């Protein structure tokens, strides 16, 4: 047997093996990244946890978090930005955490309210409204998830209520195993309204600093 006949199948086998995955036209996977707000939040949070309050203050003053607080000032409790800055300057970690929790709860609540408004519009198809709801739910969760632990340590019932409402909302936008999601934008509105309501109550009740000496 000549060398050619020995080598040829080996070359072929190698190319078939290597070529097979390439021919499955894979198009890569997408892993959602942090946006500027969540990145800056994490920077500040980790600096506070490391008791590097000067670093946290600098990151807050120059970062997107503060700019967003200013942009959303109309829907936030008064003095949230100044209070956060003061807490960072004073090295008060729990107070910084409380204020950031309020900020992200407010962002999530505003998104839930906006989602509810959009889904209520009769000019779009039911599928389009459910699709919009799904996108808003992803955005709500991205923000709320950052502060859920802080929420749970202060108001466990609120944390559970938001999670349950979120799970409920997801059943309207994610296909069930072996079937398709019921196209019911009206049903999706209820858990969104519940999320907004629970977060509004949380923001209201958390906006007064706790009395530490009592």
């Amino acid at each position, binding site marked *: 047997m*000549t060398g050619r*006949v020995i080598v*040829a199948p080996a070359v072929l086998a190698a*190319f078939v093996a290597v070529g097979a995955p390439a*021919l499955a036209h894979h198009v890569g996977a997408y892993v*959602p990244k942090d946006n500027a707000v969540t990145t800056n939040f994490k920077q500040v949070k980790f600096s506070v946890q490391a008791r590097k309050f000067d670093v946290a203050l600098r990151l807050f003053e120059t970062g997107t978090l503060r700019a967003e607080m200013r942009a959303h000032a109309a829907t936030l409790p008064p003095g949230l930005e100044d209070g956060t800055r003061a807490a960072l300057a004073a090295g008060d970690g729990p107070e910084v955490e409380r204020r950031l929790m309020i900020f992200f709860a407010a962002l999530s609540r505003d998104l839930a309210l906006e989602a509810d408004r959009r889904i209520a519009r009769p000019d779009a198809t039911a599928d389009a409204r459910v699709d919009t709801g799904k996108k808003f739910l992803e955005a709500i969760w991205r923000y709320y998830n950052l502060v859920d632990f802080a929420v749970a340590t202060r108001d466990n019932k609120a944390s559970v209520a938001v999670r349950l409402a979120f799970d409920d909302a997801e059943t309207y936008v994610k296909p069930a195993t072996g079937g398709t999601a019921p196209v019911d934008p009206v049903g999706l509105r209820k858990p969104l309204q519940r999320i907004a309501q629970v977060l509004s109550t949380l923001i209201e009740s958390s906006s007064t600093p706790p009395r530490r000496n009592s």
Partner: protein
Amino acid sequence: MTEADSATWRVPPRWVLLVAVLSIVAAEVGGGSMARFKVELTRWARDGMLARPSVHGLVGVRDVDERILDEALVKFDAGLRLFHMHAEGMGLVIIATSMVAATVIPNAAARRTIIALLTAGGAGYPVGYLVWSALIPSHGLERSKTIAEWLVWVPFGTATIVALWCLAGFVAWAMISRRRA
């Protein structure tokens, strides 16, 4: 003794080598352009997506839209990268497999057909990634993928797979024949 029985490797036709080399050149030019014009390409894709909000399901709320835009831009970039990678690799696959075909297939018609399939499939398949990327801003992620699949990936990929299996069959047949002889 037939041509296919000769003990030396046979060079595939020149046009096949030319196509393979052009594929590799296109991959290199594509890779270089991706790096050189990264900002311009991203801006073009982003502007294209913002001009067609309904295609991409943009809702006009930054917190929601930025994730959709980011995913589309990541996939747009991935398409260009995959074109670079596949065009480079398939150029070499064309050279190697057509050389095997030219060497071991005794029947001229079968040899020409398999070489043509290997060359067309190998050179055409990577273009699908380019098509996919180019269509993302105007047609959205899923629709552009479907177009690229049916226009490029399925026909050219199938051509390559069929040709490779036929070639494997010919190689197996050549081995069996030699054992019997």
